[in-house]
């Protein structure tokens, strides 16, 4: 399903809509360049799971941010990780858990990802505009 977002608030709201449909064990992979809205999307998803939007900041520094909620929420950001080091991270522990994983820069973990993923591609189409394509789930 394709969305045209015209602002950060819209991107977050699309994330919230996706978040409401997620179940335990789901893995959401976010694809898109720097500034395409991945963290905003993750924040929207988290807010649907009952996590304060203010608590979802960039995970680039720590790579994996764990949030306690009814369903554990793992916010993973592979920005700093090169594809041949991704196996060192122990990602499978999160991917095979009964929490929900959202992975930014998921392209860097292609070999590590499970078969069934929810794929979200974000594309820059103008200063405030983004095209968001979500596949692998009915919205």
């Amino acid at each position: 399903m394709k969305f045209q977002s015209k602002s950060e608030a819209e991107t977050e709201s699309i994330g919230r809509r996706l978040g409401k449909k997620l179940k335990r064990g789901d893995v959401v992979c976010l694809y898109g360049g720097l500034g395409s809205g991945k963290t905003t999307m993750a924040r929207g998803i988290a807010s649907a799971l009952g996590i304060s939007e203010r608590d979802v900041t960039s995970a680039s520094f720590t790579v994996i941010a764990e949030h306690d909620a009814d369903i554990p929420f793992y916010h993973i950001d592979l920005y700093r990780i090169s594809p041949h080091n991704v196996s060192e991270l122990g990602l499978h522990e999160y991917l095979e858990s009964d929490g929900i994983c959202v992975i930014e820069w998921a392209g860097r973990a292609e070999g590590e990802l499970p078969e069934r993923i929810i794929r979200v591609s974000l594309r820059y189409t103008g200063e405030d505009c983004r095209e968001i394509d979500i596949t692998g789930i009915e919205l």
Partner: protein
Amino acid sequence: MLILGIETSCDDTSAAVVEDGCRIISNVVSSQDDIHNRYGGIVPELASRRHMEMIVPVVREAMDRAGAGPGDISAVAVTHGPGLIGSLLVGVCFAKSLAFVHDLPLVAVNHLEGHIYSVFLEAAPEFPFIALVVSGGHTSIYIVKGFGMYTEVARTRDDAAGEAYDKVSKLLGSGYPGGPVIDKMARRGNPEAIAFPRAKLKKGRDFSFSGLKTAVLNYIRKHPESRKEDIAAGFQASVVEVLTDRVIEMAGLYGVNNITLSGGVSANSSLRRRMTERAAAKGMRVYLPSPHLCTDNAAMIAAAGYRCFIEGRFAGPALNPKACLPLGSGPRPD
């Protein structure tokens, strides 16, 4: 009274012996930059493995340099969060074992509290003060009314300031960590050549550095021929202005005359200069740690640990590290 401090929250293994919370007797920091540089950032699994290798020699060296044995130490203070969980675990387990074996009290220090107390290793600011903690992982402003009395009054909603430096450095094709690189490049650029947006939210007091990063990216896309030095200078001017304005504004709002800066980004020359100038114009005083105490170190943990000791804030053998550990509690005063 001597406190042994241990800090392993991120990618530096550090141990220090500090007297009375203010005199550094020894402060050993083993950086892991050599491991993480080639990945352009910290790889958590590699960080915790290196902590495992380094914790014993680093603590031993801190004790040796201080000429102290376990019998000379009054307590062991350790960072228990926030940070990388695997890294924190190494320091916490080691500190617990050491305290148990030598029958010493154990003190758990919040890493951010440690940063605030880094200032006390060189000066004695009076309470209350406004504290800016700004690094690669954190950007928050606190009002500090006394020891243990912290209220967060502003924070970043997305990227930490140091992270924005790293990302912009990468966009400009330069190295990691981005802070010192951009700081140096900016000195040769014109900060007024490019007007980047200010990293504030339209509503409220929080920061947002993600939009600034995107603005730099857009600019580079549209103007690939522009001078990197000018981009660095324009970007830095935005970061520094926003941090400085907000800190001065909060000091005014709370009627506070003392300001402290800490965390890795507080080593930035432009931030130090501008904050000091702006504060002086308002009759406020800024306390800046020396650059080597801005970045992660165990001396600041021992300094905060001393105050925990005085207040009787001890931890037990059940102490566990926490990746997410906000400093201060209760609702924000608006």
